[in-house]
């Protein structure tokens, strides 16, 4: 499932841009591939990240996926609920399963992202 209005990466992250804050998460395709999420490693609040930097890990019993930052900016908030209930990512990856929020410092980095239609095309080709 791909949601309109969000931006996507080829590494299966999504970004919801509201003003200069982007909320980040992993897509339905990613959570399905992983299976039941058992552990999430979140970035530190305040960390400055460049687009494509590794900002965390999502683990299941059989796999571990690195999360890459879709944009360049500063981490302002992390979803601490994921520490105790990582499986929220499976249940609601675009909503309650958000990963972190980043204040965008380089708006140009948004240009490299895919829109919903492009991401859907990309998934078809996999």
């Amino acid at each position, binding site marked *: 499932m791909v949601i309109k209005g969000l931006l996507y990466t080829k590494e299966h992250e999504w970004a919801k841009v509201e003003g200069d804050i982007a909320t980040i998460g992993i897509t339905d395709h990613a959570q399905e591939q992983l299976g*039941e999420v*058992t*552990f999430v490693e979140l970035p530190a609040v305040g960390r400055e990240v460049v687009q494509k930097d590794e900002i965390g890990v999502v*683990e*299941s*019993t*059989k796999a571990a996926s690195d999360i890459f930052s879709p944009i360049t900016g500063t981490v302002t908030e992390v979803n601490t609920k994921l520490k105790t209930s*990582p499986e929220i990512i499976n249940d609601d990856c675009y909503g309650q399963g958000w990963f972190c929020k980043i204040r965008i410092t380089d708006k140009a980095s948004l240009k490299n992202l895919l829109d919903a239609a492009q991401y859907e095309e990309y998934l078809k080709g996999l």
Partner: protein
Amino acid sequence: MKLIFEKSAAGRRGVQTAKSDVAETINIKKEFLRDKPAEITELSELDVVRHFTELSRRNFGVDTNFYPLGSCTMKYNPKVTERIASYPGFAHLHPLLPQLRGGGMLTQGALAVLYEMDLLLREITGMAGFTMQPLAGAHGELTGIMIMAAYHRDKKNKKTTVLIPDSAHGTNPASAAIAGYKVVPIASTDKGVMNIDALKKNLNDEVAGLMLTCPNTLGLFDPNVKEICDLIHSVDGVTYCDGANLNAIVGKARPADFGFDIVHINLHKTFATPHGGGGPGAGPVGVTGKLVDYLPVSVVIKRDDGTYALEYDRPKSIGYIAPFYGNFAVILRAYVYILMLGREGLVRVSENAVLNANYVRVKLKDYFESAVDTICKHECVFSPSKEMLDSGIHSLDVAKALIDRGFHPPTVYFPTTVKEAMMIEPTETESKETLDAFIEAMKDIAAISVKSPEKIKAAPVTTPVCRPDETAAVKNLDLACL
């Protein structure tokens, strides 16, 4: 079944310790002592023996079941090797003895085993020198990459990357990364071998070398292996052969001849030493002439008078990989095995291993999806058929159903480049009768998967436990009984 801690009863003793025959009882300063004894169990010898005997009956082993784990080479472990490894002349030998002045003369038999094994492995692989120090295959991989790095440092080459096929065993990229290199994965073709164009695209002066499993992890011999090695050499890269699948070519072909500069061997695979439930193993590493100077120390040499000695004076050596000379008792077992097989036996090993795998492959190819439709080497890879997958049956289910039929499952979900992979490696120690029974079981499972998939999903039903909850194991971590 109860934990051993639950069987403990205050005051029970297993083995009695001798009474002290010296007058002193030393009372070490209180601050240096533990405040109460360790919470160790108190059990009689019978309690202990019963507990472990019961545990042993919850295991499959090669001695009890056919164990066709692809890439693991679960061949029979000869009992004579256990007997010899327990000879007091080997088992009771302190490793520091040859490091005493003149101490080499106290351990000539053991040094001879190490030296002779080096020579045997050189002949088998075509390499110019071996180190017995690596304590496992992955340890051998790390050793090999460290030798690669030492070579480049010596030649003042600026190298940062190692090329590794995407089908490689996870230890390959892990070893390269630990040694300080960046890993560049190289794609495979749909025929399961290395994509030469992908290799050429990633070939540049930063490439320190290549790690290639040969035959590869799909059980195929890459026809371009010489070209691949030549390409790496063209940038003064070093070629590393992961010899985990040596069982397919032992006695028939030698990695040095394909252009490999370094090879590691898994003694617990090709040379029949027991797997022990996960170890110990041994991963000797062989190198071509240009790399011999970098081998770890000590090296066992033979002097002109025929005596053996440890040599440490190797200025270009990468140092110590292990505390001593390697997992000696494992090396000893492999040495005995090679002596018993001899030149003709070793050829028979690969011939029968390859025949057994192809026999299974041909007989099952109409019932399962073949990963690649060619002659394989010592292992074959299948996936469940489309009909099975449509019925909701995955490789894991096939594996569990085999357990109920008395077989250890094949390797599942490796190599990762094949979806729903099931890799079957019979080895040459299995008979046609066993293979026929396995084939019938697989055909049976394939049929039932489509007719009554719920029966397969319910498997295994003959074991003490069924489908442990691995997710709960991670989420509710219980890693020790304290």
